[in-house]
């Protein structure tokens, strides 16, 4: 049974199931999505027009028993950045597509009749594309319920809420997780592209096909044992993340003076203790909830959680550091429960937590609302954005656009995408990742925080320039490769410090496909992906002048260390010398 490419055309409202071209055979996840986008999408196309495509691809190991292999990649030309985008998600979709033999699901063009939205359902033999007027205007959880009523409860679901329907720049695509909650193809306005193609929901059959083919099952099993052990014995992936979640970072980043606060004015937040992972874990213990929850089947890290209010009622799950930082430290809300309510609301309507949170910070800076005013945030997200009021449309346009509308100078974006929860002035290696990654400001593209702050993979002083470009380059190459395997990016923690981890991962890829990749092959794959993405961006009209930090960071010293961004253009551009 060989994998196939499933190609859906939204203008013709038909589909083809194609053989996988030779040159795409060894690719999966980000490697495949970026290769297809670069090969088939005109870099100069309008991202919301007929010539953009969506490419969904599970990782090379997705659908197998390999621990933490359930990540799915989506490739588009991003309407937010104007460049290539790979957005990576957990949930059940990757494993289910892989078991069905869907190497990639490619969606092309837009319908001529734009009066309704469509529901795409993928089975092994067929793809159905049918209008779904009854779902238009509904938010994600209601769409999810409708799909669970119609199909087997394990069906994979990818959906957009009203922000995606309205093609907003903060919109994302929500993906069902094993517990029926939602994860997101979060960044880069993925929801707007799905909305432009008039697709409300995509479902994939999970009933009939339950296994992937392994070329060497024995070798696979023993490599997975070594790999799983590496994940479980690493203090970060084995202990810290399950106990405190990703939100454990609030305190350490705050102590290091790199936690962006009040729209990137300060490197410390007075709210840190109120919103930190330790406080969250205490609340979970006291209120009943769970500190451990996997975003995809086969996850042994379980960094996610279920967070309840004081009465023990469910508030949020997948309550992550980036979101809590954006609304707690950067916008200034000190009430963790209110932040949780906002988190669940954002899951429901389908907006990117980072882009939305940073947008509110810029909006507060520009006087549209007050910092700390979480009630107004909640109202805008629950009323103005779904209804598409002028205020909703403005907030929905993202931080870069809101900055322009309000005449704000302090606009923390790179390639028009909001900077996440690590201050580039105080964590300079991470800043190099923000400016150089083809994705726009993205923390997962090359997580230099590991080596700048967390003492993972050694230590490079976060306040100094030395070694940062090389660090970021090596991490970005490795991340591009990991993003192709279907592995969660947190496997990077054991991979950085445990020599048994990466070879076991490569052994699994080899045992899955009956091939003989070496560590060097994997590195060169990562480098090739990065260069493919960079070349696409250059053809799309992005230049070295887009690989830059917002100017205010060059002249506003960031407390407490009073540091500025001090890389020269030449130092940044040397990133691409490989």
């Amino acid at each position, binding site marked *: 049974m060989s994998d196939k490419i499933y190609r859906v055309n939204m203008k013709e409202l038909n589909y083809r199931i194609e053989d996988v071209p030779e040159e795409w055979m060894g690719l999966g996840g980000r490697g495949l999505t970026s290769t297809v986008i670069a090969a088939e999408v005109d870099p100069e196309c309008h991202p919301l027009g007929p010539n953009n495509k969506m490419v969904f691809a599970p990782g090379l190991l997705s659908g197998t028993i390999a621990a933490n292999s359930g990540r799915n990649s989506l490739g588009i030309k991003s309407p937010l950045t104007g460049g290539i985008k790979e957005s990576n998600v957990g949930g059940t979709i990757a494993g289910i597509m892989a078991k069905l033999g869907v190497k990639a699901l490619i969606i092309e063009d837009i319908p001529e009749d734009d009066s309704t939205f469509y529901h795409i359902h993928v089975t092994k033999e067929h793809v159905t594309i049918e209008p779904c007027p009854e779902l238009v205007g509904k938010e994600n959880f209601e769409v999810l319920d409708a799909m669970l009523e119609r199909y087997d409860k394990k069906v994979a679901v990818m959906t957009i809420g009203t922000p995606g329907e309205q093609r907003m720049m903060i919109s994302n695509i929500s993906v069902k997780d094993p517990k029926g909650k939602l994860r997101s193809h979060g960044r880069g306005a993925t929801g707007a592209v799905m909305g432009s193609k008039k697709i409300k929901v995509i479902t994939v059959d999970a009933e009939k096909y339950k296994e992937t083919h392994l070329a060497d099952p024995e070798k696979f099993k023993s490599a997975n044992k070594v790999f799983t052990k590496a994940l479980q014995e690493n203090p*970060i992936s084995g*202990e810290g993340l399950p106990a405190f979640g990703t939100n454990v*970072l609030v*305190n*350490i980043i705050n102590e290091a003076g790199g936690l962006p606060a009040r729209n990137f004015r300060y490197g410390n937040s007075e709210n840190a203790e109120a919103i930190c992972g*330790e406080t969250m874990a205490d609340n979970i213990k006291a209120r009943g909830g769970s500190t451990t929850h996997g975003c995809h089947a086969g996850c042994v890290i379980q960094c996610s959680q279920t967070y309840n209010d004081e009465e023990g009622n469910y508030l949020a799950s997948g309550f992550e550091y980036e979101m809590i930082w954006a609304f707690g430290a950067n916008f200034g809300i000190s009430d963790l429960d209110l932040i949780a309510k906002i988190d669940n609301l954002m899951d429901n309507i389908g907006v990117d937590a980072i882009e939305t949170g940073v947008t509110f910070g810029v909006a507060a800076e520009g006087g549209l609302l007050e910092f700390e005013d979480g009630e107004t945030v909640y109202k805008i997200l629950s009323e103005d954005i779904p209804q598409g009021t002028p205020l909703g449309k403005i907030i929905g346009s993202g931080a870069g656009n809101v900055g322009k509308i309000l005449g704000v100078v302090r606009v923390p974006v790179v390639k028009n995408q909001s900077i996440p929860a690590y201050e580039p002035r105080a964590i300079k290696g991470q800043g190099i990742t923000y400016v150089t990654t083809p994705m726009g400001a993205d923390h997962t593209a090359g997580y230099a925080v590991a080596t700048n702050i967390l003492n993972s993979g050694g230590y490079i002083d976060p306040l100094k320039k030395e070694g940062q470009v090389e660090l970021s380059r090596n991490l970005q190459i490795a991340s591009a490769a990991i993003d192709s395997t279907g592995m969660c*990016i947190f496997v990077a923690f054991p991979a950085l410090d445990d020599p048994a981890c990466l070879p076991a991962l490569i052994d699994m890829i080899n045992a899955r496909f009956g091939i003989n990749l070496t560590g060097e092959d994997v590195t060169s794959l990562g480098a090739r992906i990065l260069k493919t993405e960079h070349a696409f961006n250059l053809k799309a009209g992005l230049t070295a002048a887009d690989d830059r930090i917002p100017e205010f960071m060059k002249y506003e010293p960031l407390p407490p260390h009073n540091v500025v961004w001090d890389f020269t253009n030449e130092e940044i551009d040397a990133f691409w010398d490989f």
Partner: protein
Amino acid sequence: MENAIEVTVKLFAQYREGHFKAEPRVYPKGTTVEGVIIETGIPVEQFPIGVIMINGRHMDESYVIEHGDTVSLFPKVGGG
């Protein structure tokens, strides 16, 4: 105590359990971070030290604390 200095010690993640979040503490002059770690009794055998910061800057266990320092002690943590 003429030889005494006062510092703020902050503990994080698993180190807080049964200990404290942040406290002013008095030590003899010349105490290293290693000495502080031993004195606090945090469970470094179960959760080895991941990061030591003095006033928000990374240091190692041999650093000799000075009056007024903030000493932050973390087990290995990560996220993203």
